[in-house]
């Protein structure tokens, strides 16, 4: 076998002193799918940014196709046939899908004009060729995050890459979409391409990777054939200790309904009914899980519950008060917390520090503010405590959120939302991008909140997560609740599947 890429002794120190890569070396064989795994903050994204010419390493060399290379910008990398799908999406929100896809390689008419027809044609073609459906004439900002991810993947595929880097591409995809993507990746492999694949979902790694490199704390722990390792072994290599998954029994105390939704209808800007007389209750001490293929109204429902979107009609009663049409601040004041599906859009202010992000919803209250001034000393200590409790890998509470790894940014959001003693928790993909070790932590915290009497509304594209955590489950299809399961004991994905796909519905 040929080595296409050889990474030798890469050392990367960020300006703030964080050593993200501490002498990383491994080889990637041509025509393989090579998985890269490691805990949040292990240095995976950093290494990939180095390969793609975004970051420069302090030491080490990269040998690509037998030649020592030194990419100064993504342009260099692209010219050499390297493509990258970034962990956090890189799309221009006001441009259409077709425009985003062809940006930089626009087809032209009479030399100086854009050939719009051709752009749409290209978009349609690749979307069909790779089996990833995208609405090519819609603006990116109007699309749910899963669709945006597909656009991102197509963008890389379209550029005829030889080496494709995928940084957690499946974090926001539904299982069905992930399967489609894997089929595409295997096809690409057949056509001689090489793929670097990063994921926290070890099942996926086992499913498609030929080889696996595990990194921990900036160092390579092992590079092995995927067939030599079990999921469990990979997880242990990642965290460096034994992992035991503990199951917590369901809460015995189910109380009053804290979140009640009655006949909620939502018609969107394009006059399409997105939610149709949705009604449900979530009581104190229970977790209501929503199962459904992404794009069936979950995003809108969550945004309505949290005040980010206005409903068309219906009632949203939270702690006895109708909160329909209220502002996010009013809703939060009423005891609601929200882990949003897109952390970069609705979860954090990237350019602010961790501690600032941790108090954005409560800075005006005691003890964070004293009169008209903020008590920074208190806030700093508070930040330190949450960083520790929620296992965030950061140098200090004063670090900028933009300097954190993706999973650690997610932890900051989770820390803020679960630390406010909420009575209702709206959790949309709470463990998106979080590593196996911390996943356990977030789940445990959600269960603890439940046991303390919170009502949890959980949305997840990961059916296993829904099944594991929920007290009850509803299935959303095409904006309607098509099934309700009050007893989840023994329930499996197979039981839910037909409802999720709309082939079956309860009377």
């Amino acid at each position: 076998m040929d080595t296409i890429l050889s990474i030798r002794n890469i050392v990367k120190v960020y300006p703030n002193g964080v050593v993200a890569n501490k002498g990383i070396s491994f080889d990637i064989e041509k025509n393989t799918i090579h998985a890269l795994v490691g805990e949040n903050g292990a240095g995976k994204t950093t290494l990939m940014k180095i390969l793609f010419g975004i970051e420069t390493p302090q030491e080490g060399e990269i040998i690509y196709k037998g030649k020592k290379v030194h990419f100064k910008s993504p342009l260099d990398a692209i010219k050499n046939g390297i493509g990258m799908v970034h962990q956090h999406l890189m799309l221009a929100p006001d441009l259409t899908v077709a425009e985003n896809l062809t940006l930089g390689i626009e087809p032209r008419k009479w030399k100086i004009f854009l050939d719009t027809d051709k752009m749409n044609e290209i978009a349609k073609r690749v979307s069909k060729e790779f089996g990833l459906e995208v609405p090519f004439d819609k603006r990116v900002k109007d699309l749910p995050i899963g669709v945006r991810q597909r656009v991102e993947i197509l963008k890389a595929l379209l550029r005829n890459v030889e080496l494709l880097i995928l940084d957690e591409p499946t974090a926001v995809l539904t299982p069905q979409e992930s399967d489609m993507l894997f089929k595409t990746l295997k096809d690409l492999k057949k056509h001689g391409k090489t793929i670097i694949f990063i994921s926290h979902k070890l099942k996926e790694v086992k499913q498609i990777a030929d080889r696996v490199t595990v990194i921990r704390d900036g160092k390579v722990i092992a590079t092995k054939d995927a067939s030599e390792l079990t999921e469990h072994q990979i997880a242990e290599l990642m965290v460096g200790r034994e992992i035991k998954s503990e199951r917590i029994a369901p809460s015995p105390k189910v109380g009053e309904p804290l979140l009640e939704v009655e006949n909620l209808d939502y018609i969107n800007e394009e006059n399409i009914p997105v939610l149709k007389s949705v009604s449900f209750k979530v009581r104190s001490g229970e977790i209501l899980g929503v199962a459904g293929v992404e794009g069936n109204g979950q995003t809108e429902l969550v945004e309505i519950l949290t005040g980010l979107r206005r409903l068309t009609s219906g009632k949203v009663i939270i702690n006895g008060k109708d909160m329909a049409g209220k502002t996010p601040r009013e809703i939060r004041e009423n005891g609601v917390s929200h882990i949003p599906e897109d952390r970069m859009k609705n979860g954090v202010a990237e350019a602010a520090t961790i501690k600032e992000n941790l108090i954005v919803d409560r800075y005006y209250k005691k003890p964070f503010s004293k009169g008209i001034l903020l008590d920074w000393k208190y806030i700093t200590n508070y930040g330190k405590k949450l960083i520790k409790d929620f296992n965030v890998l950061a140098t200090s509470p004063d670090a900028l959120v933009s300097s954190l790894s993706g999973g650690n940014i997610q932890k900051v959001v989770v820390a803020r939302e679960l630390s406010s003693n909420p009575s209702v928790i709206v959790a949309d993909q709470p463990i998106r991008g979080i590593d196996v070790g911390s996943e356990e932590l977030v789940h445990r915290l959600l269960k603890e909140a439940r046991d303390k009497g919170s009502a949890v509304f959980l949305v997840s594209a990961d059916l296993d997560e829904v099944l594991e955590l929920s007290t009850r489950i509803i299935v959303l299809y095409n904006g309607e609740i098509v099934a309700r399961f009050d007893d989840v004991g023994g329930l499996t994905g197979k039981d839910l599947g037909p409802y999720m796909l709309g082939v079956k519905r309860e009377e």
Partner: protein
Amino acid sequence: MNPLLKSIFSANFVFATLRVTTPILFAAIGVAITALSGSINIALEGIMLIAAFVGVIVSAFTGSLWLALIFGVLAAVGLAALLGYFHLNLKADIIIAAIALNMFASGITVFLTYIFAHDKGTTSSLKSLVFPSYQIPILKDIPVLGKMFSGLNVLTYFALICVVIFYYLIYKTPLGLRIRAVGQNPDAAESVGVDVKKVKMYSLLLSGFFGAFGGLYLSMGYVSWFSRDMTAGRGFIAIAAASIGGNLPIGTFFGSLLFGVVNTLAIFLATLKVPSELIQMIPYITTVLVLAIYAIQKSAKSRGEE
């Protein structure tokens, strides 16, 4: 009817509005195109001033309107290039660099006015040229419409054409697409190999190009001489005009028109027995009011759709 109202509802008013709108519109297009690429360009004031001055001087000394045009544009684009160089290559803050260039333009034009015209205030002693006005065939013979829309300065018509050019540039060319992409998410543009710095530079140069005509119009159309700081804040009003219009072509046009109307109104009201200081405030107060209303509406709207 009250004579003032009569004059406001006359063909004359429309005609005057278009005259007054012209320099604002040119500048606003310049502002808008840089805004789309993600930078704020407050240097239009200086850009226009330089073009206004160079146009007058070149036309006075060469007697050629074309040379005046070419050098006016070159000077303005040059100033924009300087702004780009400071901001993009030397990494200076674009606002501060623009303030410096505005002051530079103001100072150097006064200095050179003195050198060339031996007067610190205006070049009226020089025999400089003006751009001609143009009677539109057929339209000029239609009663009211002819009076409104025919016989304006050629640069006024060119300003309207520039709105169309701006539209095509932004929506129909690869450069326009890249400008928008860079403005919305520079990392995204860079990740597909777009040279962000280059794109930002092009959009600044374009703002110099459009702004140049605004300046040329002021000194060689609106009036027939250069006088110190004759742009009189139009470069800033243009920022408001462009942002009301969302920095998009049609919006920028209507935003500029709005300020044109208000300014013209102020001119017409000057005939009243109201202190002229009060009347001169009208355009600026309108700017503040309109921007405030615009901002409130925008934030209300964004909540509606989120």
